[in-house]
C-alpha cells in the first residue's frame, strides 16, 4: 500500500513535469519596471510610459561594470485607447515579460489628472501584479518627461522619488491609500506633486561641469473625486499635514522672542490635531485644536538667546505662525477649491451619523460654508546643543 501511495505521488509529479513549467520566467527574462507614467496625449489617447531597469547597471560584482557610465534605465512608451490598451501596446515593444511587482511609483501627467485618474487606479488595483504600496504622484507636464530624467545619487528617477518621498514623511500616498480616500465620503484625496528641477552640477575633470536635473517634491495636487482641480505648494502642504495631524518635517521662521533680527528658525516635529464638529441642524461649525511640538534650529546672531523665560514667548509666536499658515490653506481649500481635503466630513460622520446621511452627498457645499475655529498650541522642546548664537558675545 505504501508503495502504491509512493508511486501515485511519483506519477502525479511526473505528469506535472511532462508539459513543462508554465509560469517559469527566469529573472533574466523579465523587464523589471521601476516606475510607470500615464499621460493623456493630444489625440485623447492614453500613453503609458515604463521606466525599465537595466540590470547590468545594478550589478556590483566583478562581472558587471558598475561605473556611472552605464545607462541605468530604458524609458519606453506605448499608446492606446485605454490604460489596458496602452499596456498591450507596450507588451509588443518590450521583448521581455513586463515585471510590475518592483514598480515603485505611478506618475500621472496633469493632462490626464485633470480629466480623472479613476481608470488608472482601477487598472493598477485590479492588475494583481502591481503592488498596492506603489506611490501615486502627479506631475505638471508629461509623466514621460519625468521618467526620462535620470538621477545622480540613485540610478533611476523612480528610485530617487521613492527615497525623497520616504524622507519627507507625510507626503507619500500609496495606491491603496489613494483608493481609500477616493472611496470614502467626507474626505477628498491629495497626492504629491512632483517635478523636475535643475539641481546642482557634477564636476567632471577635464570636461567642465554637467548640469544635473533632479526630481523634486513640489507640493500636493488637490482632487475632487478622481480629478485634479488645484495645487498646493510645499508651504501649504506642510500646513495641510499639520492640520491632518501627520508627522512632517521642515522649518518655519518665527519672529524671535525679543523681536530683533530676521527671526528664529523652528523645526516642527508634528503633533496632534483634533477636529470637533458642532452642528445644530442649520449652522455647521468646526473647532480645530492643534498641539504642535517644535525644536529650535537656528538663531541669527543678533537675537537674544533662547532661555527658560523666553521659550514661552517662542511657543506663542510659533503657535501664531502655525495658525496663520493653517488658516491660509484652509481658506484655499474652502474658497478657491471648495473641497474637503482634511477629513472634516469624516469627523462629522463620526459625531452626527444621522445628519450625515442627508449631508454626505452635498458635503462640499456644507464644508465650504462651515465656520472653522482654529486653536494652536505649540511647545518648543529642544534648543539644540548650544545656548547662544555663534559670535554673539563679540557683538556685546
Amino acid at each position, binding site marked *: 500500500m505504501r508503495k502504491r501511495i509512493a508511486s501515485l505521488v511519483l506519477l502525479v509529479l511526473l505528469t506535472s513535469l511532462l508539459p513543462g513549467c508554465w509560469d517559469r520566467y527566469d529573472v533574466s527574462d523579465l523587464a523589471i519596471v521601476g516606475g510607470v507614467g500615464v499621460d493623456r496625449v493630444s489625440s485623447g489617447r492614453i500613453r503609458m510610459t515604463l521606466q525599465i531597469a537595466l540590470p547590468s547597471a545594478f550589478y556590483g560584482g566583478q562581472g558587471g561594470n558598475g561605473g556611472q557610465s552605464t545607462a541605468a534605465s530604458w524609458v519606453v512608451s506605448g499608446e492606446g485607447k485605454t490604460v489596458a490598451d496602452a499596456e498591450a501596446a507596450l507588451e509588443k515593444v518590450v521583448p521581455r515579460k513586463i515585471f510590475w511587482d518592483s514598480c515603485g511609483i505611478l506618475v500621472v501627467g496633469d493632462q490626464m489628472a485633470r480629466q480623472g485618474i479613476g481608470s488608472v487606479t482601477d487598472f493598477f488595483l485590479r492588475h494583481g501584479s502591481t503592488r498596492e504600496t506603489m506611490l501615486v504622484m502627479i506631475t505638471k507636464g508629461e509623466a514621460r518627461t519625468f521618467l526620462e530624467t535620470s538621477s545622480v545619487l540613485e540610478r533611476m528617477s523612480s528610485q530617487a522619488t521613492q527615497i525623497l518621498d520616504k524622507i519627507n514623511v507625510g507626503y507619500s500616498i500609496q495606491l491603496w491609500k489613494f483608493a481609500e480616500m477616493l472611496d470614502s465620503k467626507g474626505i477628498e484625496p491629495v497626492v504629491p506633486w512632483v517635478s523636475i528641477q535643475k539641481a546642482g552640477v557634477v564636476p567632471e575633470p577635464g570636461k567642465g561641469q554637467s548640469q544635473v536635473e533632479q526630481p523634486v517634491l513640489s507640493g500636493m495636487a488637490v482632487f475632487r473625486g478622481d480629478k485634479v482641480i488645484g495645487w498646493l505648494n510645499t508651504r501649504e502642504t506642510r500646513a495641510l499635514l499639520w492640520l491632518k495631524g501627520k508627522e512632517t518635517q521642515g522649518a518655519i521662521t518665527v519672529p524671535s522672542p525679543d523681536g530683533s533680527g530676521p527671526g528664529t528658525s523652528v523645526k516642527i516635529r508634528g503633533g496632534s490635531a483634533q477636529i470637533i464638529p458642532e452642528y445644530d441642524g442649520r449652522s455647521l461649525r468646526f473647532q480645530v485644536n492643534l498641539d504642535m511640538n517644535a525644536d529650535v534650529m537656528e538663531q541669527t546672531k543678533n537675537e537674544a538667546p533662547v532661555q527658560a523665560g523666553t521659550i514661552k514667548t517662542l511657543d506663542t509666536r510659533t503657535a501664531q505662525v502655525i495658525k496663520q499658515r493653517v488658516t491660509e490653506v484652509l481658506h484655499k481649500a474652502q474658497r478657491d477649491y471648495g473641497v474637503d481635503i482634511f477629513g472634516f466630513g469624516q469627523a462629522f460622520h*463620526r459625531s452626527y451619523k444621522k445628519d450625515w446621511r442627508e449631508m454626505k452627498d452635498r458635503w462640499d457645499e456644507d464644508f465650504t460654508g462651515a465656520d472653522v475655529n482654529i486653536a494652536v498650541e505649540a511647545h518648543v522642546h529642544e534648543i539644540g546643543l548650544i545656548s547662544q548664537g555663534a559670535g554673539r558675545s563679540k557683538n556685546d
Partner: protein
Amino acid sequence: MEQGKIDSKQAILLMMSTVLPTAILTVPAVTVKFAQQDAWLSLLVALSVALIIALLIVNLGLRFPGKTLFVYPEEILGKIVGKIICGLYIGYFLQLGSAVVREFSLFLGATIMPNTPIVVFTILIIAVAAYAVRNGLEVLSRFNQLFIPLSGLLVIMFLLSSKEMNLTRVLPIFDTGLVPVLKGAAYPLNWLGLIVTMGVMLPYLNKPRRAYRVAVIATLLNGLFLLASIMGALLLFGPHLTANWLYPTYDAVRVICLDHVVERFESIILVMWLLGGFVKLGVFYYGAVLGSAQWFVLEDYRPLVIPVGVILGALSFLLYGENVADLDHFFTDAGIPSSVLIFEIGIPLALLSVDLLRGKGRRKG
C-alpha cells in the same frame, strides 16, 4: 477503523485549522460588504450562534459514546432514515472538501500562477491531503500541530500593520442598523458553524468528557481570530476598501512595509494558507472517507482514500463554475443559508430533540 486518539489540545487546533485558513481571507470582505464598519458586531452575533451549535453537537455526540455523526442517526431514527442522513453528511463533507480544493486551486491558479492549468493544483492539493488522511486522524492532527506555531507570524504581522491602523475607521458604531448586521452574520456563521465536524472527531478524543471544553474553546478562538482579521482589515482600509477587495487579509499583509526592510510578507500568508489548507481539506476529506466507510460498514477506511479523492477533484470542477466570482456566488447566495440551516443547525437539532423525546419516553416506560 480509526485506531488513533487525539488529545484536547490537538482537537482544538484541528478545529481551528478546519475553520480559519480560508475564512480568515474571505470573511472580512463579505461581512463588511453587508455590515460596513459594524462587521465586528455581525461576527459577535455569528459567534454566539456558533457556540450554541458547538454545545448542541457535543451534547448529541456524548449521548452515543464511541459513535460518530455518521452512525448515531441510525440509532435515533432507525436504519433507513439514519443511512439517508449519514449519506447527506457524507455529501456535506464532500461539498466542503471540494469547495476547499476549488478555492485553493483558483487562488493559486488565478493570482499566483496564471498560466498553469488549474487541474495541476487540484491534483497536488488532493494528493498531499490524501497522504495525510491515509495515515489517519492522529497523523493529521500532529501535522497540524507541527505547523500551527507558524501562525504566530500572523499575530506579528497584525502588530506590524498596527502602525497604519486607525481606530476612527470603525466609527460611528451601529451606523448601518440591525438588519445589515444580521445579514452580515450569516457568512461568518457558516464558517464558525463548521464546529459540527466535532461530531466526527468526538469518539476519538482521548478524554471525551472534555469535549464541551474543546468545542467551546475552539469556537471562541476561531471567533477571536476572525474578529482580529475583520478589525485588522477595517482599521487598516476602512469599510469601503475592505468590501472592495477579495482577500483583504492578504492585502493587509501586502501593504506592510516598515521602511522597506520588512516588506513582501505575503509569502508567509501563502505558506500558512497552503499548509492550513492541506489540513482543512484533510479534515473534510477524512470526514467523507470515514463516513463512507461507516456507511458501507467497512473494516478499514483506507481503500476509500483514493476514490474519495477522485470524487473531490471531480466535484471541485463540477460544482463551482468557472472563476472566483462564481465560487463567491455559490457561497454567498446558494450554499450558505442551506448548509447552515440544514447541516449545522437543522439536522443536529432534529436528532437531539428526537432522542430527547424517545429517551424520556423510554425512561418513563
